[in-house]
């Protein structure tokens, strides 16, 4: 497996405050990784160090084997969005993308292409100050996609998006990563990205507390998703097809391990099986997340 991102003992101090404390992780090509932690855990600082905007106090961050700033035209390999608001309000969305594109030799035709991709063609020549937050998020994403990157780094991309926007983003990222491309996406809300990512890095107070696949994390939850249906056999078959383990628990009830209730509900829906009850038993993913990230505090 190719390591697209390698962070080694990344540390960032601001005076006496240690924002990021000896963080090490690796991202393989073709994965979608959720970078999770409460606000102030050091997520954004870590991403800034990965992208060469901030210098680590110690440690190294390599992307495609080299520090970001030492790559030749990194914007052609790595797309990143750190803030949803990084636009001049008086400049049109299209000109914003053109000025970025020109600095790395991306033609205007590619600008129009990414505008279509994020569904902003109609608003392209309007000033950004008239854009909604969702449109700004998509314009930021368009900027990250200009150079046809193999790695996408997004800081809290779902912030302020309406449910429709979150769904759009999820579908987009899934299709992006399906071409053996890599995504690192940060969030302070696990639920927001639980349906999108393959694996999670959870940090708290600048330290890595969990590095695992989403499935392992889900099974750590201990509990299970309890689902009741009039067609338990068909449902069990549908779940097995998705590589989920379901055990019968009394009449018409299945207990599904290692999955979220969202996922079970979606599988049932896709298989056309009516569900009469759908409950997460034991602690939820969100509770585990809060528990893990609270460990450092005392």
């Amino acid at each position: 497996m190719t390591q697209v991102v390698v962070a080694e003992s990344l540390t960032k101090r601001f005076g006496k405050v240690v924002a990021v404390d000896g963080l090490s992780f690796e991202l393989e090509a073709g994965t979608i990784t959720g970078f999770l932690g409460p606000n102030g855990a050091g997520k954004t600082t870590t991403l800034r160090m990965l992208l060469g905007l901030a210098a680590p106090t110690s440690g190294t961050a390599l992307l495609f084997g080299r520090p970001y700033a030492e790559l030749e035209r990194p914007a052609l390999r790595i797309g990143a969005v750190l803030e949803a608001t990084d636009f001049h309000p008086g400049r049109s969305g299209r000109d914003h993308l053109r000025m970025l594109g020109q600095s790395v030799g991306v033609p205007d035709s590619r600008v129009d292409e990414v505008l279509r991709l994020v569904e902003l063609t109609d608003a392209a020549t309007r000033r950004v100050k008239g854009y909604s937050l969702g449109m700004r998020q998509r314009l930021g994403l368009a900027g990250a996609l200009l150079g046809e990157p193999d790695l996408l780094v997004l800081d809290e991309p779902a912030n302020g998006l309406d449910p429709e926007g979150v769904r759009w983003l999820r579908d987009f990222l899934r299709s992006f990563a399906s071409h053996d491309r890599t995504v690192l996406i940060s969030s302070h809300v696990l639920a927001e990205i639980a349906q999108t990512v393959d694996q999670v890095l959870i940090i708290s107070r600048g330290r890595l507390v969990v590095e695992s696949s989403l499935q392992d994390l889900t099974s750590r939850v201990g509990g299970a998703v309890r689902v009741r249906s009039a067609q338990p056999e068909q449902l069990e078959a549908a779940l097995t097809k998705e590589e989920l383990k379901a055990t019968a628990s009394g009449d018409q009830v299945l207990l599904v391990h290692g999955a979220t209730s969202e996922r079970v509900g979606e599988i049932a829906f896709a298989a056309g099986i009516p569900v009469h009850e759908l409950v997460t038993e034991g602690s939820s993913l969100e509770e585990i997340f809060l528990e893990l990230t609270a460990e450092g505090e005392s």
Partner: protein
Amino acid sequence: MIRQIKAELLKVRSTRTTIGLLLGMIALILLFTLLTGLLASASSFSGTENQRQFLGISDLAGVFSALAGVMLVASEYRYGTIRPTVLFTPHRSRLLAAKTVAGALAGVTFGIVGAAIGWALGYTILTSRGITFALNSGDIILLVLGGLASVALWGAIGTGLGAVVRNQVGAVITLLAWGFVVNPLLFGLVPAVGRFMPSYAGDALVGLTTKHLLSPAAGGAVLIGWTALLAGIGFALTAQRDIS
């Protein structure tokens, strides 16, 4: 580097700020030329020095090109576009060099427009008032080309100042206070030092012969020195600072 300069010039052109500065410049040059040209007595236009000063009103363009240069850096910090900009051009010295060149090139535009307007109106006023035109071709070339060079360098100086101060309001106030308060004060009180201030180096560059001013060549060199100094400090600071 050419790509970066193109991108920076697009930044200058793609907001209304630049148009606003150009219009402000045109209005101010027209106003000052008209007021001076119509209100001052005919005798105050006699001789080369008086006419240089009158036609040199168009060098007010330097204030506006410097403001455009400041915006080229400071507005990136103000609106956060510095983040995508640096992600696309992580070599910060290359980025600032491109901005400095773009600031100077924008300054050339300001200079040409300003000179065209100032000269057209000023010359019309002089001839219509029956005042003998006293400048020879050498004077004119120095006044026009020197003025253009100084307005262009002011654009680059503004870019350097923007990189040093970063805060847009702070940089604009610094520029105006330095150009309109500190420079004249120093020149009035300690002319031996004040003549090295960029405003007076610019006056020297266009051939003004006010007492204490440097020679045109020395004035040009001093103006280039200021540009290099500010760009150098801007480079040094930008290379070290994290971008939040």
